[in-house]
């Protein structure tokens, strides 16, 4: 087992979010959030995390819970609207549907944001990740009901908006600055959003 000894030691602070999640999961599954149960869960979490090694997730170093809640609400709204659209497409368009496989290049270079964006866009009906190019953070997405270049452009803009929202939640500072700089150029026209993303 030479690979075991080569593993880099993960700093405790990097592991902490995973440990907290595992403790909460333990409490939820037992439906018991008493101190003793959570302590026992914490011991099991530490054992599990050390026994089943996972490569550490590189976090952006910041977390904006308000932006997170806003993103969750937007996400459920998108999922609801798109679910009915897919239902309508299935009933009305059916076999005549036109799709596309689109490449969308994201701004981020973090694996976390790339994965989260791919996940979120996959969960919203009408799009699914066919392939990922990690080295240049490009998602290849199969999307329903793309009838021409305008649809494709609108779809790409939607993916980039989701990515921007996720960067606001937990992206690192350089990416956040990039998103803000872009927004100052754009939101002069889109005043409806009321300068969202201000500190």
């Amino acid at each position, binding site marked *: 087992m030479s690979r075991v000894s080569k593993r880099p030691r993960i700093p405790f602070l990097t592991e902490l979010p995973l440990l907290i999640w595992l403790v909460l*999961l333990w409490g939820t599954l037992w439906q018991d959030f008493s101190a003793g149960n959570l302590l026992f869960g914490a011991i099991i979490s530490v054992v599990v995390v050390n026994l089943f090694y996972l490569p550490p997730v590189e976090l952006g170093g910041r977390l904006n819970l308000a932006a997170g809640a806003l993103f969750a609400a937007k996400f459920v709204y998108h999922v609801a609207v798109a*679910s009915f659209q897919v239902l309508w497409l299935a009933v009305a368009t*059916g*076999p005549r549907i036109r799709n*596309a*496989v689109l*490449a969308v290049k994201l701004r981020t270079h973090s694996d976390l944001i790339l994965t989260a964006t791919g996940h979120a866009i996959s*969960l919203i009906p009408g799009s699914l990740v066919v392939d990922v190019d990690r080295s240049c953070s490009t998602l290849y997405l*199969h999307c329903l009901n793309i009838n021409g270049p305008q*649809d494709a452009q609108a779809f790409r803009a939607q993916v980039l908006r989701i990515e921007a929202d996720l960067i606001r939640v937990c992206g690192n500072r350089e990416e956040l600055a990039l998103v803000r700089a872009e927004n100052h150029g754009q939101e002069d026209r889109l005043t409806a959003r009321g300068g969202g993303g201000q500190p």
Partner: protein
Amino acid sequence: MNTDLILDIASGICLILGAVMSLAAAIGLIRFPDLLSRMHAATKPQVFGLLLLLTGLGLQLRSWAMVPVLLLAWLFQLLTVPVSAHMVGRSGYRTKHLRKETLTEDDLDAVVQKAAADEALRSEEAPDRQ
């Protein structure tokens, strides 16, 4: 109006709408022309459908202890659905189980062709490029 009745009606609406989402999946499976568009119908409306069903269940159970469990059930669905859809979609694309004539644009085609060409080139020559 008492609250029990209102909650009953709300949970009834949630359950029916959730079931409609399952119906959408079934209709999509029959109506859509190829594997990838069927994947949309088969996996995605369930995300919202399950949310509605769990909400309806929560409104009937009316116990705060159940809320984290229901939330967890939905979260695990959120984590697993894109993975399975991606695996089927990716292998479906690579094994040509899609109908090109339904696509208006295909950005991946050139990439896959190039990768295949590079692979062929590399197996012929010495591996001088990484």
